């Protein structure tokens, strides 16, 4: 009996631990005041509400800015603080500025942004020759890694938009940062690349099955590729998704999150419930239907007849 109770307690403990982790997320915000004690400052941003978005790594960097660059050395110019935290209590995020030739080298931290030696306050999301500093971001939790992605729409895959950045190739407006719902600026698509973040289970912590799902929560994990070779091709959009779920793959297609990772279907299957109405001059609406195959799926073809 005692063993049984002990076993139950262990199961509950494991569930609480892993339940807590599976709900872990990164939360970021642009603030006017400095970050609170459970948050980490990633960088400061200049006046993005007016179509700006120049960035410095933190407010101290202002001291290093050459006074000749008067536009960038206005006191208190970079008044927005980009602060991030996790919902895991004391565990939190870490940032580190390194030379772009170095590796982040701690807790599998990833490179978030590249900076041009902090003097012109523009950034890049890819390494370029004149962007010789890079900001690494990692998570201070042995069971989790922070996974950063750039571009596309990864909301279906459980990624959260951290911020947006303008086209780094567009000279004049390159490397400007704004918030996720940015609608301002001289062109509506100025901040067109979304930077996504998601906390994922550390590979060492995963109990992977050979179908690339974690035994504890039944979800697919990209990190299982470190354990099973079948999982090395898991599409990033399937990371953290339940097996068999269709997720967005590109602009036109969805992919089925299931080995062998090559089942696609066009984006015709919406998530909206079918709702049919008629205008006033139609007294009776009669429905007849037939099962048909469309895009390799069984669907109903319905004919609505107005009488």
């Amino acid at each position, binding site marked *: 009996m005692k063993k049984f109770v002990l076993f139950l307690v262990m199961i509950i403990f494991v569930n609480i631990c892993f339940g807590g982790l599976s709900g872990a997320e990164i939360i970021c915000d642009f603030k006017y005041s400095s970050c609170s004690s459970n948050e980490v400052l990633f960088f400061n941003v200049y006046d993005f509400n007016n179509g700006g978005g120049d960035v410095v790594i933190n407010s101290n960097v202002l001291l290093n800015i050459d006074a000749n660059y008067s536009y960038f050395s206005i006191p208190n110019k970079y008044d927005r603080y980009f602060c991030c935290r996790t919902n895991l209590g004391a565990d939190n995020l870490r940032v580190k500025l390194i030379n772009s030739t170095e590796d982040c080298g701690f807790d599998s931290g990833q490179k978030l942004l590249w900076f041009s030696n902090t003097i012109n306050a523009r950034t890049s999301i890819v390494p370029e020759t004149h962007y010789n500093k890079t900001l690494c971001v990692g998570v201070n939790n042995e069971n989790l890694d922070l996974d950063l992605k750039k571009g596309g729409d990864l909301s279906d895959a459980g990624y959260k938009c951290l911020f947006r950045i303008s086209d780094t190739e567009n000279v004049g407006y390159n490397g400007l940062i704004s918030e996720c719902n940015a609608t301002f600026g001289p062109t509506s698509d100025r901040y067109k690349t979304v930077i996504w973040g998601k906390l994922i289970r550390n590979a060492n912590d995963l109990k992977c099955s050979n179908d690339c799902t974690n035994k504890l929560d039944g979800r697919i994990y990209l990190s299982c590729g470190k354990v099973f070779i079948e999982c090395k091709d898991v599409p990033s959009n399937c990371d953290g998704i339940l097996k068999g779920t269709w997720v967005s793959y590109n*602009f*036109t*297609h969805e992919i089925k999150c299931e080995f062998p990772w090559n089942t696609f279907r*066009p*984006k*015709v*299957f*919406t*998530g*909206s*419930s*079918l*709702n*049919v*109405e*008629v*205008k006033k*001059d*139609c007294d*009776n*609406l*009669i429905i*007849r*239907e*037939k*099962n*048909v*195959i*469309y895009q390799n*799926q*069984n*669907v*109903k*073809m*319905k*004919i*609505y*007849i*107005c*009488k």
Partner: protein
Amino acid sequence: MVREKIFQKKSQTFSADLFVVVIVILIGVLFLVINKINTNEVVNTEEIEKEAEKEADLIFKTFEEKNILNENGDLDIISIKNLDYEKLKEDLNIKGDFAIVLEKDGKLVKFSPNEDQTCFGSDKIIVNGKPCKT
């Protein structure tokens, strides 16, 4: 005097009986009329449904003949999109307006990934808030 009273009483009795008979007949007629109306409505609804069923079957049959719907049940949606709604309606002699919609597990299915078209047919029929495109 006595004779006059007897006559008056008889006259009153006669008119009261007549009144009751008239009321009964009127109620009877009313019931008959209501019954007739209901029967007509049932017949009309049944007729409408039968007619609609015939028209839907005709559309399905035409699609099969045109190989828009093949024997395996595969649907060629591009051919449906290329049909002329008014011409199809006229050719098949369909009196009412109609619309064709695709559904999977209660959810709307678009006609193609890059377009918003969700139905083919009359704009009197509104699918998820948008009038159907012909």
